């Protein structure tokens, strides 16, 4: 299947691929073609004017860059310049803690020790700035990046060193309920668009020096900050290496969402199944990290990637671990059943109606036969129409502004549900089947249900052609494909296949917390012991009042 798509796409995309290759080549030769970038390792000059000029040249036509020149309070000969981007820097901090401090309120120094130009930098750094985070650099490139990241750069005349003040502050969304993964019980926080906030959210949950957060920068134009988080001692070191090497080979111009990275680090890019999971819940990420996974955070998106990803993850909601295990297991079973339903129900229905009438008990067969008497379409077309209209409705519901969304659902339900059955265009049983399928596909993770939705149509075609045999063949191919998938070296279907006995207690059923002694074997190769045995609560038989 994979190579089928590959050959197909090779044909289709050949022209475009060559084009992009040419473009890339052009890009590499004329490095500054896209924009005026500083030369590598270009250092600052001691002259403030020159530096300003260079920076201004780089930020040509960038109206949001602010250059503020002023003089030092103690010695008017020392000229200073502040450079920052309007909207990214915290204006209060910049004016209060930097400008005010330097231009007006620099404390009186020891008499006799006048601050000379030469000592200015040292003095400012040590006593002049009321900032919590200060860095120094002499490279123009770093200065530019600091400005773009929202830091405030202070240039001091006569020094080749710039001071980078971490006075970032921009308008950001506050932490809200998770939208894509709502829960009944459990933490309500979700990630936001700011990387630092997100790492803090994870750190708040794992208060251990073992939680490592490494950062790197991706995207030639966007220069997006990307963080890799893992828990040392639990994670498999090779996995971290693998993640890093896969990330480092990414050379794209932009990373606007984790989706960009996801497609670039997948094990099998042609598979309809996602092999990199994403979530917007910090507690889920924390749980993943504690099982030995690696999280990839990207600045600018609330979705965090976790690898390696297993098939079963998509059936596990974080709530499963917060509810009591019996209920959690029951719910998981339902999710499992609905997963199977959402994949096979329409094709099973088609196969049964058009090939295998034996599947129905006699009364049901007669009742369905009665319903279908007036229907003018073959069942395949009928189901296809219904499935398509369901997909259209669903898409419309997502895209439409919220107030109109309700109108769509009413019209959809009325037109498609009621009217088509009354008009005799669609059998009532078909509506039931399609509705059940649609609802079932929402019981597990959205990104995963997309895969099943695609495959559902394929299976429908197959079972329309060959009945159950077609359906089974399709399922066999899907199964083989799933068996062949790996996510960062871990078999996708594990721990079911290949079977690791101890890990099976967290697949379809969830064993109680006092029963989960070990971490997943294939993921966490180090320190598999999760907790002590014998934690099962045994309250005293005769509790004293």
């Amino acid at each position: 299947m994979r190579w089928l798509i590959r050959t197909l796409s090779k044909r289709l995309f050949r022209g475009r691929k060559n084009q992009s290759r040419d473009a890339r080549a052009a890009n590499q030769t004329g490095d500054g073609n896209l924009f005026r970038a500083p030369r590598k390792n270009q250092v600052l000059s001691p002259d403030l004017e020159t530096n300003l000029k260079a920076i201004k040249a780089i930020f040509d036509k960038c109206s949001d860059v602010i250059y503020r020149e002023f003089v030092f309070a103690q010695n008017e000969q020392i000229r200073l310049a502040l450079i920052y981007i309007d909207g990214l820097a915290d204006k209060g901090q910049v004016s209060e803690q930097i400008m005010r401090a330097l231009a007006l309120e620099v404390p009186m120094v020891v008499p006799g020790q006048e601050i000379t130009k030469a000592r200015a930098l040292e003095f400012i750094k040590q006593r002049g700035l009321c900032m919590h985070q200060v860095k120094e650099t002499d490279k123009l490139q770093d200065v530019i990046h600091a400005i773009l990241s929202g830091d405030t750069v202070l240039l001091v005349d006569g020094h080749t060193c710039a001071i980078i003040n971490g006075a970032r502050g921009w308008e950001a969304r506050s932490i809200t309920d998770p939208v894509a993964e709502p829960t009944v019980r459990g933490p309500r926080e979700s990630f936001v668009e700011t990387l630092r906030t997100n790492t803090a959210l994870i750190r708040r949950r794992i208060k251990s020096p073992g939680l490592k957060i490494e950062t790197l920068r991706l995207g030639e134009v966007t220069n997006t900050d990307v963080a890799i988080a893992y828990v040392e001692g639990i994670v498999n070191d090779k996995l971290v290496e693998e993640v890093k090497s896969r990330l480092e080979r990414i050379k794209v111009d932009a990373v606007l969402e984790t989706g960009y990275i996801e497609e670039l680090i997948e094990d099998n890019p042609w598979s309809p199944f996602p092999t990199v999971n994403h979530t917007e819940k910090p507690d889920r990420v924390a749980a993943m990290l504690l099982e030995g996974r690696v999280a990839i955070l990207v600045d600018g998106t609330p979705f965090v990637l976790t690898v390696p990803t297993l098939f079963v993850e998509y059936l596990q909601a974080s709530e499963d671990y917060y509810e009591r295990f019996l209920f959690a297991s029951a719910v998981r079973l339902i999710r499992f059943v609905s997963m199977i339903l959402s994949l096979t129900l329409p094709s099973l229905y088609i196969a049964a109606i058009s090939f295998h009438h034996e599947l129905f008990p006699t009364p049901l067969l007669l009742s369905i036969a009665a319903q279908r008497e007036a229907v003018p379409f073959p069942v395949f077309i009928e189901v296809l129409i219904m499935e398509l209209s369901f997909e259209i409705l669903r898409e419309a519901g997502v895209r439409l502004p919220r107030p109109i969304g309700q109108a769509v659902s009413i019209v959809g339900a009325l037109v498609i549900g009621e009217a088509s059955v009354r008009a005799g265009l669609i059998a009532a049983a078909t509506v039931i089947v399609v509705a059940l399928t649609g609802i079932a596909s929402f019981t597990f993770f959205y990104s995963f249900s997309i895969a099943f939705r695609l495959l559902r149509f394929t299976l429908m075609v197959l079972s329309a052609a060959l009945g159950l045999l077609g359906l089974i063949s399709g399922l066999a191919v899907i199964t083989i494909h799933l068996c062949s998938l790996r996510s960062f070296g871990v078999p996708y279907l594990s721990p079911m296949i290949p079977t690791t006995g101890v890990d099976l207690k967290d697949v379809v059923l969830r064993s109680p917390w006092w029963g989960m002694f070990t971490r997943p074997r294939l993921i966490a190769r180090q320190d598999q012991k999760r907790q002590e045995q014998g934690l099962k609560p045994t309250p005293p038989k005769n509790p004293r009042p």
Partner: protein
Amino acid sequence: MLKKIAFFLLLALLTGILSGCWSRKEISEIAIVLGTGVDLTEDGRIRLTVQIARPTAFVGGGEAGAVGTEAPASWVVSAEGRTVEEAERYLAMKVPRELYWGHNVILVIGEEMAKKGTRMVTNFFQRERQPRENAWLMVTKGEAKDFLETYSDLAKTSAQAAGFLTRMKTCYAVQLREFAEMLASKGVQPTATRVEAKKAGITPGPGQEKVFTAHKQVELTGAAVFKEDKLIGWLDAYQTRGLLWLKGEAMKGAVIVPSPAEPDKNVSIRILRGSTKVVPEYDGENLRFNVIIKVEGNMVDQQSREDLARPEKIKALKEAVAEAIRQRTAVALEKAQGEYGVDIFGFGEAFHRKYKKAWRELKDRWDEEFTRAEVNVTVDVRIREIGLLTRRASTEEK
């Protein structure tokens, strides 16, 4: 290169599959056969009669099926041919949809056909994939066509009604596969359900109080006795009880016995469960079968006035029940050993199980041996409950 070839092959396969759609029959393209009847016509041809469901009559739910206008639920149609298949092909010329046998409930064989031999009929229904081996096999007195051309008031179609009747095992019931097994065995001769279409009950309604609309309905009336695959006689309902006891099947029904102290009044015992064990004894010449029947039942009805809720009365009742069952078996045995001369009880099988060597000699003339065999029936009765009453409600002490 290889990939390209494989790719195009796959493409070709896909288009081939999509355009083919073999064996595809939409539900709206099939005629669902609920009952099948086979008769022998006077000129020796096979007449196949099918009862086809009319889907429009089965519309469920609210407004679709308007109340009052009850559409006929089935359509009965027949065709003739030299074989069942030929008749089926001629049927296909009359029925505008593909005949579909997967939900065929009953297979009725007409009397004449059964006399000629059932193999001509059953083979088709076993060999074909659609008809189920679970279908109930029955033999009707008269023509199967007439039997199917009835309708039922409770079930939607008469075929379903017959199916329900047999499934409840109120009388002797046999599935196609069980019949086939008996046919294949030398230790037992086949028997099948005997059915008839008889007038039963009326359907009163507003404006119909005086017009009695009694029409023919299906009824189970006993069993049909075969030698090999040919019908040789009938058992009526009473004799069939004996057959059931001896075969150890369908331990249901009631035994009516005279009340111990008032023999002219009756007491009814409803049978709950029971078992039959056949123990053959053979010394090289004399063949004897000891049949041990164990019965459990409840008392459900009492016409007499006496107080039966006493241990000694219950004991007397037990003996009466045993005697009644013995009588029934005796009647059936007499028919089988005397009139028809065939082992319809499967005693041969029991004999085979115990005397495998002797069986090899006897199996080819088993029916003769059987008619000469002596059969002792012992009945062990247990009466468990007496219902909600201790005695007849209106009575003076006695």
